[in-house]
């Protein structure tokens, strides 16, 4: 049952749109051929690139958050986790509109900065790529923090002590003991944010002012503007293949790299 919508999309991607906007049951692969046109490939690579940058940003911001959450104790930890998740008690669209009013030329951030004369003209954040990144960061951060946090929680504290005991400095313990043992968590967290980012369309639309089109935006416009459901489905199909490839790479990577053999050649 859960696969049914996906199957419908899959089947539709091999059908055709009639000039009237209805669907004709004429099996062909023209939609897929069309999706390889320059304009769509360009958007595809731009989407991957933006999602990678945004994932990296999430990692840079999220890792220290997860690390400090895992190392804090008692009520500090509880408070941290609550603060991380409170935004999710409000509707997604509302949160994005909240960001719009925060980042705009007359938004809170610009008003404060102007008031203290730190800037002379309002910062252009809204409807730029920076706005999109901030939106993605704000929205996806917890999904990256949680897997890393739980990997750190599960890490036996005596491993750290053993590393320290055997002559490693704090940084060496971090690099040679902590990171290798939580890299699964780091990877899973990154995928948790990277994959949905690829299909993102609301954030680029509202915070990027539709100037920064993601593949998701093209897809949505095919469905609801162009009324070309078969082509929209083909783009969705391409996206799914991309996601499967990502998962496959992750799988291969964690299997081959999960363990280091010893010896002279190590």
């Amino acid at each position, binding site marked *: 049952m859960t696969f049914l919508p996906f199957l419908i999309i899959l089947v539709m991607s091999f059908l055709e749109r009639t000039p009237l906007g209805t669907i004709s049951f004429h099996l062909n692969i023209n939609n897929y051929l069309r999706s390889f046109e320059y304009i769509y490939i360009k958007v595809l690579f731009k989407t991957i690139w933006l999602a990678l940058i945004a994932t990296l940003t999430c990692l840079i911001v999220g890792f220290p958050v997860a690390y400090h959450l895992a190392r804090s104790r008692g009520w500090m930890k509880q408070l941290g986790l609550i603060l991380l998740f409170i935004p999710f008690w409000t509707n997604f669209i509302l949160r994005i509109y909240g960001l719009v009013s925060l980042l705009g030329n007359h938004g809170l951030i610009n008003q404060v900065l102007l008031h203290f004369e730190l800037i002379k003209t309002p910062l252009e954040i809204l409807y730029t790529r920076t706005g999109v990144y901030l939106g993605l960061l704000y929205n996806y951060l917890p999904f990256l923090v949680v897997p890393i946090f739980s990997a750190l929680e599960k890490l036996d504290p005596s491993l750290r*002590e053993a590393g320290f005991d055997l002559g490693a400095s704090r940084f060496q313990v971090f690099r040679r003991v902590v990171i290798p043992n939580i890299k699964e968590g780091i990877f899973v967290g990154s995928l948790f944010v990277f994959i949905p980012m690829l299909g993102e369309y609301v954030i680029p639309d509202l915070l990027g002012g539709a100037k920064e089109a993601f593949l998701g935006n093209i897809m949505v416009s095919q469905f609801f503007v162009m009324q070309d459901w078969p082509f929209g489905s083909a783009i969705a199909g391409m996206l799914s293949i991309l996601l499967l490839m990502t998962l496959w790479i992750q799988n291969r990577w964690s299997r081959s790299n999960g363990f280091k053999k010893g010896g002279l050649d190590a």
Partner: protein
Amino acid sequence: MPLDLTGLSKTYAKDGSGFRLFPLDLTIEKGEFFCLLGPSGCGKTTVLRLIGGFETPTSGTITLNQENITHLPPNKRNLHTVFQRYALFPHLSIFENVAFSLRLKKVAKAEIEERVVQALRLVQIEDLRDRRTDQISGGQSQRVALARALVDRPEVLLLDEPLSALDPELRIKMREELKALCKKVGLTFVMVTHDQEEALQLSDRMAVMRDGQCLQVGTPKAIYEDPIDPFVARFIGQVNEITGDLIGDGPETYALQSALGTFKIKKNGHPLSKSINLILRPEKMRLLRQRSQLQENLIEGSICDLTYLGSRTEYSVKVKDKTFKVFEQELERLKKRKLNVGDNIYLTWRTEDAILLNHPNS
């Protein structure tokens, strides 16, 4: 004197209230197998963690070979810990686990190979070098942890209840190996344990601890034969206790008057208070069928339980409201004398076998 603890203490709170470890003075000799023995919560692990550098003492100093290491971080101390749950690195092979400290020191690859193999050979697990840590048994993990700690030749090895996670049979086997290993590598071993048998078997000297205090330090024999504290006597081996008052004063002996009768006590030079605990080890007591005029210390009782254990038989003897434990060695294959539950017997002991301690309330 390689390892010296002077006035070493640790409190729970930062303001110095509530001692987890009361000020401790201890010298551990080079090449010695030293055990810290006590029940859980006695502060023995605290001592080990302070020596290892994982905690900072509230007061006192730790010196290793005349060098003050009290405030050095663990990675700057020339000693290694074998952790209770081994703490092997799951992302590294057995070989790489052992090579960890050498790689940090940037030792040449060929030398790493040689020294790791040597360390693995020392604990007899050469063939496991390419295994993962989840592909080996508990006993093997123990050996890897030992090899990892020994490979860069520290001066002191700290062992935190290293055998407690093993099953009993393996534990006995590893005890012997651990002792042999200590003599072979000639390092100082400091081990924490709550198992008195383990401590007796392994230590050259040991410290018995309770409630953050060190009660007695000495060889296993001295601790067993001459405990200076009732807790030490009770914790190491089994005891029968008779409480009484000191009366009379002969040239070489006292008399002890108790609810069970009057007994002879040999003077041993220690000052004794009026109220005395007479402590008798079960194996130092004898059972007599008949009252003997030659025996000085006699208590009449009846056997209420006996357990045959092959090399010895353990009797429980009821005397008034007290129960005495007596262990008798089966010295001859067919013992003529057969004692049964319910038999009336006499308990006796040699005067010099009794341990005398001042009653804690006096």
